[in-house]
């Protein structure tokens, strides 16, 4: 009896699973046919697609990103200015070139991995996108999470007593 019940339950479960699976599949297929909701909001978003944004000159003249020769040198110079004499080594590895949309602009950018060594031989790394013409840093991400053994020894800014004079 128990076995029969189990069998029955199994069959019901299998039928249900099959029904759900086929419905879900059908739903995904339907959505793939660009079943965009008929709401004005959605259409207005679609109208602001990348292709419709007025393109700046250098995008028009260089639809395939042709980075300048200076971007990497300029980027290195920027990093050296900030790090000063503590910078031992800078390695910039290009990951990709692409057109980045921001503020109704289409900018040719280089996506890079930057590695820096300080004089103690300690390394840090992060990613950035930089302007393919000027080397200007536009965005950075993927910075390390450092876990110092003692948070009390972390870098801080001392209070200047003159503030209360």
């Amino acid at each position, binding site marked *: 009896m128990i076995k029969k019940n189990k069998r029955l339950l199994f069959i019901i479960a299998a039928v249900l699973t099959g029904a759900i699976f086929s419905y*879900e599949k059908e739903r995904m297929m339907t959505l*793939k046919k660009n*079943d*965009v*909701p008929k*709401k004005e*909001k*959605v259409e207005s*978003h679609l109208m602001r*697609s990348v292709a419709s944004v*007025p393109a*700046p000159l*250098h995008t028009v003249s260089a639809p395939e990103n042709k980075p*300048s*020769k200076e971007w990497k040198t*300029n980027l290195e110079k920027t990093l050296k200015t*900030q*790090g*000063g004499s*503590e910078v031992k080594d800078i390695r910039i590895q290009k*990951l*990709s*070139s*692409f057109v980045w*949309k*921001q503020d109704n*602009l289409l900018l040719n950018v280089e996506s890079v991995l930057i590695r820096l060594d*300080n004089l*103690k031989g*300690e*390394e*840090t*790394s*992060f*990613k950035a*996108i930089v*302007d393919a*013409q*000027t*080397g*200007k*840093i536009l965005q*950075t*991400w*993927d*910075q*390390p*999470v*450092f*876990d110092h*053994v003692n*948070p*009390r020894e972390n*870098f*801080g*800014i*001392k*209070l200047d007593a*003159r*503030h209360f004079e």
Partner: protein
Amino acid sequence: MNRFNGLFSITILMALASCNPTQITGAKSRGDAVIDNNDASLDNKAYIYRDSPSIIAPGQGARVAIADIIDTSSPEIITLNNQLTGNCAVDLSTFFTSTLSECIHSKGVKDSAETITPRQENKTYIFTPDSEAFYETNALFHIQAGTDKFFKKLSFAYQQVHGPFNITKPKSIPEYLPNSELFWFKAIDLSSNGQLFRNSFLTSFALCNKDKNASFSPAGVELCFGFHSSFPGLLFVQDPSVIYHELAHALVSVMMNMRNGTAVSSHPFRSNLGSFGYEEAGAINEGIADYYSFVMNARTHFGEWALGVTSNQSRPISESDAIHISGVNTTAEGRLSYPQFILYDPNFPDSPLEDVHYAGQIVSHYLVALTQNLQTTCSAAMGESAHDTSTSYVLLLLSETLSEIGDLNSFYDPNVPSYYFNNLNTDASFLWTQVVNQTSYRRFFQIFAKNIRNYITSNLCPAFTKSISEKLLDDYGLLLFKTYNNNGHTTTDRNNILNDIDPFIPVQPLTAVTESNRRKSVLIAKDLLDLAPNVTAANSTISFFIIDNGTDIQNLLKELLFKGFPVPISTTASFEYNNNNVRISPGEIVALIPNLFNSSNSTMAGVQLLANDWDHVHVTDTSTGNFKPCVVDTVTTVDQGAVANGSETCSTAVPLNEHTRLVKSGGVFPAEAVAPVCLVELEEGTSTRWVSQSEFRKKSGLSLLDKDCLGYVSSSTTVDDPDFNFNPHECLARFLPGANDAFFSKIDSRKTYFDSVVKDSENKQFNVGNLLLMEVSKWIPPGTKFRCRLRARFANCSDCHADSGNSNDDFLDYELNGSKPFKVINFDFDVND
């Protein structure tokens, strides 16, 4: 017989090695084979240490020889690969397993060679204890164990979330995860010659050149285990709880980015949980990392060896830990509650400190309490291993929560990519996740609680009711929200909902928190936050601390850079101009620390101050981008050149629904845009008005070209090459990108931030997270007056997040472009000669 020969060799070697405590100084030997014979029973295996020396040989401080804690009774399979690499396998489908071969690389010293140690000729991974290869082997064993456990739990989470019981629920872990392979650090082609990740594997460096440090670097992707220079021979890799903690940072990074790519495309950026210096996102990351140590070893304490022995900095993960001060216990009243325990260091309870690791204890303690509560409340569902099942529940909640928080694509369904439900929209999402709507304790625990309702209460364990969940959150002071924000609307319109694109998901009514469950979590009105008055008498307060000491600023910039945060300094400013007069002068780079004052009767916490562009002006001329400020408070008035609030052009109640900066595009400026925070006062005859910096430079007689402005960069060979990203309305003074938001742990009742946190601290230092960095053009005439309109809000705020005009539903993402969710903080300054 052969096996016994091998064990005999090891025993002899152990005995020799244990004569002296480990003395590791820098480079280690590679580690030759230590067994002569292997009858195949030791193939691919090694003897490993299962826990840290402090646990296996307690009470001996740092004087434990690593050879003495190796478990020689039961060798473990390290890898079936022929070198020290591990594989990834996760069952995201009933029908097949997703696999990534060699997804973990285990190395020792980080140098140019960086070779992977091969399996020995005797087919084992048994190396001389204390050798480089020995630590590579142990690191791989523990990382693989942590990864396997994560995948097992992710498999559970995925199959629950996408199972038949949850078909009507909005879900965050994407259905296409098996195809995108973003369950790991999978390199994805963005174009024919690029990739999102450099590597599709995680590399561990067991003997990293970092004194007193361990780290996770998502750019690598790398784990790094350092040493302690005061304790020769003591290595972080010797403490498996530290390995699990660092691995957990990697797993958080994975979970944060699950939604950020499909099989065919990917967002160009990745989300990170936390930045540099104190902020709550980083504290949550640390809390989860401590919790993962508990997931792995079921111990409610972390870092006894690497942190405890060396620095008295090991951390508890439960109130039941003996290290806590009296009064902290597992009762509702004794929990480690927010914000009371934000600065709490259980090792030095009389010396509070603002740090993500201490604040993160609230998160780790809550997660352990939740785990234990699930074990008791849902005992029938726990199966053979209550710890394993309950931690799987919590990992389900974490993966759903983090993948929603870190979502950069913003769409729910890639087939409907322009219908945004999260983090404003695809273009602005990075700014929203990392800055404007960055993760606070409120945001995290509101989404987490929503997922408890969706997956635990309504399916896995109905006995863990909404009320139980809310009460437990409240025990920790974390019931910081009024509703679950669960009605599934888009980021710009409450009338557009998930049901529009997914008929399986019914219209979701907004669920309110039961107010009687809120006993410890205090919410405070935003108007009770302001700048401290500037009084220079005895017992004085000060509105802003200004740091313009050139050496301090230079050191700060170096520190930022070597933590991965380059700050783009302009050619018209430099720390060489800094004159150290604690005022703002032409050409300087200054650090500003606003001294915020809490005039309420409760402690404010998680205070965030934004100095990024926002919708507070009305553009009057699209050819120049000149604008008039909108009236957003009683400080800048119509008489001073502002446009009245409520007018069609300056309605602060309806800000711009995208984040478009005031930069030229197609030869004109946008008619509606977010603008830089700093206005400048223009004198015209006998009257003055606040104007844009670009208008000021033209009308005040300054003959500054664009290329002489702050923020303008051109390539060296082509001077005329325009900087398309340049914003002329921050030509004279600007907050530096990457350093234009500040965070403050807490402000006590009727006190300033300085008095609450810094004044009585051990070092009387400000945290880097407290700073805003500003650069000032060297061309500014002394005496020029500026007004910067900053925006502040905090985690336990009653009206910064919930919109009382919409049944306490959260403000829509686009509303964070305006002033309504914030308290506007005006920072006025004159440029001093």
